[in-house]
């Protein structure tokens, strides 16, 4: 699904990521751990296209997303004819080299990439339902949209009337993270990155977050979860764990590595 090779990011003259390499397969639940300032959030933002980077970041869009991208933003997507004929059916090129294209975040989003923000900003005057309607597929009719919305609000533990609240305005930390989960469920991306999704959450909200991620996740989808929360890690049961330190992936393993790191620290 995602191949990252020699990813380097400099911000304000400082090298944050240094030739980082990482592979994510379909169906992976990958937990990334690392000390403060190691570059975890920068990695998340590079995948979403929010920071400039060098190196290679290749992403394989699934058929559904590739064809949606082809429909909605033709100009940003490569097209090939599936037959040799000039008027043969069109097919989107599925492997997208996100570096060469320096695709803006909206294109990546339409290709099925999602980032759960550590601190989502407030957008006054825009209700959650209007916002979700604007970002989800126009092909879903209004009745179905509201049905989905109300089902997913219940799933993330937000009251029904939150649909009319302004986006992140006056939300507590926990409510903001629940709203990110609501967007995950409504957008149904193929690759989702969760940046410190657990920070400042109580036990119940951590459980809701884990439940939402598991509800969304299938064998065709991949999750990258940046966290140090043992409850969340245990609930999600990742098949891969990577340690990010000094701008590089220094160690990879399975759940055991996460548990050992939680117990002994990064230099244990």
């Amino acid at each position, binding site marked *: 699904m995602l191949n990252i090779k020699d990813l380097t990011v400099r911000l304000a003259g400082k090298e944050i990521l240094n030739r980082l390499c990482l592979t994510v397969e379909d169906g992976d639940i990958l937990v990334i751990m690392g000390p403060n300032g190691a570059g975890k959030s920068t990695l998340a933002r590079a995948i979403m296209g929010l920071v400039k980077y060098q190196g290679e970041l290749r992403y394989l869009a699934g058929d559904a997303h590739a064809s949606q991208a082809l429909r909605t933003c033709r100009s940003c997507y490569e097209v090939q004819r599936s037959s040799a004929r000039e008027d043969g059916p069109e097919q989107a090129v599925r492997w997208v080299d996100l570096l060469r294209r*320096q695709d803006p975040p909206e294109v990546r989003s339409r290709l099925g990439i*999602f980032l759960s923000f550590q601190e989502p900003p407030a*957008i006054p005057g825009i209700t959650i339902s209007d916002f979700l309607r604007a970002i989800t597929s126009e092909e879903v009719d209004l009745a179905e949209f509201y049905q989905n919305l109300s089902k997913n609000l219940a799933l993330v533990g937000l009251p029904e009337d939150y649909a009319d609240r302004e986006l992140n305005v006056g939300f507590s930390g926990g409510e903001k993270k629940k709203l990110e989960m609501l967007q995950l469920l409504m957008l149904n991306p193929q690759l989702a990155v969760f940046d410190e999704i657990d920070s400042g959450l109580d036990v119940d909200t951590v459980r809701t977050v884990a439940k939402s991620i598991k509800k969304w996740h299938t064998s065709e989808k991949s999750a990258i979860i940046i966290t140090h929360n043992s409850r969340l890690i245990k609930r999600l049961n990742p098949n891969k764990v990577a340690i990010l330190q000094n701008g590089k992936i220094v160690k990879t393993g399975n759940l055991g590595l996460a548990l050992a790191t939680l117990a002994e620290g990064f230099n244990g």
Partner: protein
Amino acid sequence: MATEISQKKHEPKWMLEYRLACAELLKTIPQPAWGPDLSGLNLDKIQYYVDPKTVRKATWQELPGDVAKIYDDLGIPEAEQSSLAGVGAQFDSEVVYHNLRETVRKKGVIYEDFDVAARGEIPELSEAENAKIANMVREHYMQLVKPDEHFYAALHGAVHSGGSFVYVPKGVEVEIPLQAYFRFNAPSAGQFEHTLIIVDEGAKLHFIEGCSAPKYNEANLHAGCVEIYVGKKALVRYSTVENWSKNMYNLNTKRAKVEAGGRLEWVSGSFGSHVTMLYPCSVLAGKGASSSYLGISLAGEGQDLDTGAKMIHLAPQTSSTIESKSIVKPGGKTTFRSLVKICAEDCKSSSNCDSLLVENPVENSQNVAKSHKTAPENVVKNTTLKAPVSDTIPSVELKGVTADVSHEARVGRISEEQLLYLQSRGLSESAARNLIVSGFAESVARELPLEYAVEMNRLVNLEIKGGL
């Protein structure tokens, strides 16, 4: 000039005398010494009276084709069908269309061309009733906005033409709005319509005023005047959506007097014009009277929109609220000016003033990965415009009384994090900007009549897109 207009209109003698007195007065009043630069306005070049060359009609079909098409394109006849109780349309200096629903007319509501009402020539009324109306006009005309107040009030008094007269009798509630639509079509023209609204005790009215004009190179002048008398326990809402072209000097004066227990609500959207100076004023004259002002202005390149409100509390237990929003793009300027004057006990007033500066996209998002296709255009386009400017000048006067008065002001920008967040959800940068700006304007947009809210959103989006 004043005599010429008056003769053309066959006005009563008192009106001609009034015009001549105003013309005399003009010689003694200087131009405003504060606010936006008016030096681009050459009063010698303004055409004070422009005849649309048609007599007034009661159906749209009867209007000359080119005039009818303009209103059609603006969607006025369609809106009249669906959501308005009455419509008046002024083209340059004269009212060319007027109609009021029969059901509303039967309740005794009068909505007429101002000149017709002043002459006492309303076709549906008897001679005696017409005499009463003509007298009512004479008694109320320019009693709230006095011609000696400022230069443009005196000018208005001398050359006014067209406008609306509305009377709502005691206890009558006009459920659907009345609308006046003002259109400038001639280059260098001036429009000086007079709107006089009298709403009797316990009655209710929503009056909507819409304005637009095509763009010419010469300066246009709009110096209209609105006077509203709100009776005891009456409720009046006056909504304005103004989209003058960018060569317009919009120097309008609006004032209302509110009797005991009455309420006046100003809702105002200022999107067009080169320079606007507009500060609707409510005089709260009776105990327990109240007023609110809700305004939004959008200033782009070369626009200086100086707006606000005045609330004069003359009676005890009166209250007022002012809420202002302004959106300023590069090269634009907005100023919010307010005066809250309290001369009686036990009064309350609060104002809230928010500005959103919409800056050059390139500066905002240097770190974002951009598709190479759009980047070069952005760089070229954004080199010359000045940064957007927004000022707030509130003023409070307490005349030896204590009162509960508050004022809050904020200036904000579209933050990079907001843009990135929305882009991460699949919106393009311009769609993200539009969404943020629409959200900012939302509290005003929802107070406008639906078709105007849609129009406002369209204008806001159009304006924002134009800047990218």
